[in-house]
């Protein structure tokens, strides 16, 4: 699609001068007119370029299998998805797992549990465990991105299911991978993190299990999730790496372990777009052709 370096240069130029994605948007529109949709091409596009926000939800739904490749089935299947959502919601209300004042993210959790046969019998005695907290964080972030509750539930559910299915085995290795790339980019910081004992205490579950939900604001987060949904979990390593690099000076100055961890769990929210842009660049640099990088 865009192996031509000239074209890549132009795109980068447009990004700088504010015409970001003019060409990308056009080529995505061409892809979206195909029937059936070519999932491979859509994934490749999404790996290479940020999705224009007007098409993001639609592309995510197709890539996550919420909508099938055939566009003329979208109305039918969309109807099924909506009915399924309503059926589950209604049953949970009747069984009093939820009521009108239940926060929507908790509603989504109960729905997800119902579908996975994991609904607790006595919810009032259940303290949310870590897995539930991961779910709730991702839900809260998805809710910021997606307005329609039916879409929102399906996206949360399929995002989490796909992530576990595709990357469940890779996630435990991501901290090691982060250490590797940090040793390439900034060995002094790595040494510092090791000597203060901070390295094993980095917020890996926030980064690699919640995919930065609750860490990055939604405008930056959705650009990371574009890459995750279209097939890369390695991008998570580079976002983490770029966070460490961006706050290198600050981190080198903190010698207390809890200080490092606390700071990284609550990074400033102003700078995150630049961090994600740099992370994507670095990811493309190390992983070369992003199509084949997992």
């Amino acid at each position, binding site marked *: 699609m865009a192996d031509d370096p000239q074209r890549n240069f132009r795109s980068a130029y447009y990004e700088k001068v504010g015409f970001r994605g003019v060409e990308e948007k056009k080529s995505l529109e061409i892809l979206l007119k195909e029937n059936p949709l070519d999932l491979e091409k859509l994934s490749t596009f999404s790996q290479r370029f940020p999705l224009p926000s007007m098409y993001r939800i639609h592309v995510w739904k197709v890539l996550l299998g919420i909508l099938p490749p055939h566009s003329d089935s979208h109305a039918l299947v969309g109807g*099924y998805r909506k009915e399924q959502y309503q059926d589950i919601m209604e049953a949970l209300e009747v069984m009093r797992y939820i009521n009108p004042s239940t926060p929507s993210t908790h509603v989504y959790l109960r729905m997800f549990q119902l579908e996975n*046969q994991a609904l607790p019998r006595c919810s009032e005695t259940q303290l949310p465990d870590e897995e539930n907290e991961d779910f709730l964080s991702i839900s809260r972030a998805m809710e910021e991105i997606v307005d329609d509750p039916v879409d929102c539930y399906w996206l949360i559910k399929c995002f989490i299911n796909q992530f576990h299915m595709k990357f469940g085995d890779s996630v435990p290795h991501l901290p090691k991978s982060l250490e590797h790339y940090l040793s390439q980019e900034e060995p002094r910081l790595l040494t510092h993190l090791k000597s203060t004992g901070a390295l094993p205490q980095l917020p890996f579950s926030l980064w690699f299990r919640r995919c930065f939900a609750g860490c990055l604001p939604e405008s930056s987060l959705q650009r990371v999730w574009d890459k995750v949904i279209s097939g890369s979990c390695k991008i998570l390593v580079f976002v983490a790496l770029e966070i460490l690099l961006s706050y290198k000076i600050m981190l080198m100055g903190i010698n207390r372990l809890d200080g490092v961890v606390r700071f990284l769990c609550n990074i400033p929210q102003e700078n995150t777009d630049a961090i994600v842009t740099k992370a994507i660049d670095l990811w493309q640099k190390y992983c070369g052709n992003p199509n084949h990088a997992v």
Partner: protein
Amino acid sequence: FLEDVKGQAKAELQASDCRYHAQRRITQLLQTELLQLYSRVEMEAPAPPTSSSCSSPPPGRAD
């Protein structure tokens, strides 16, 4: 082209089946819930009500 038609039909059928299976799980849950609730009602009111009030039907309803 034939594969295409088949693929489309398969995706539609999968989505419809998915909706059915969610409904199945709902039925199972409701059944469990009802069983529990019935056994609780029977435990809590083992003796038949002495009051002649009609507003409180007996726990079982099989005739």
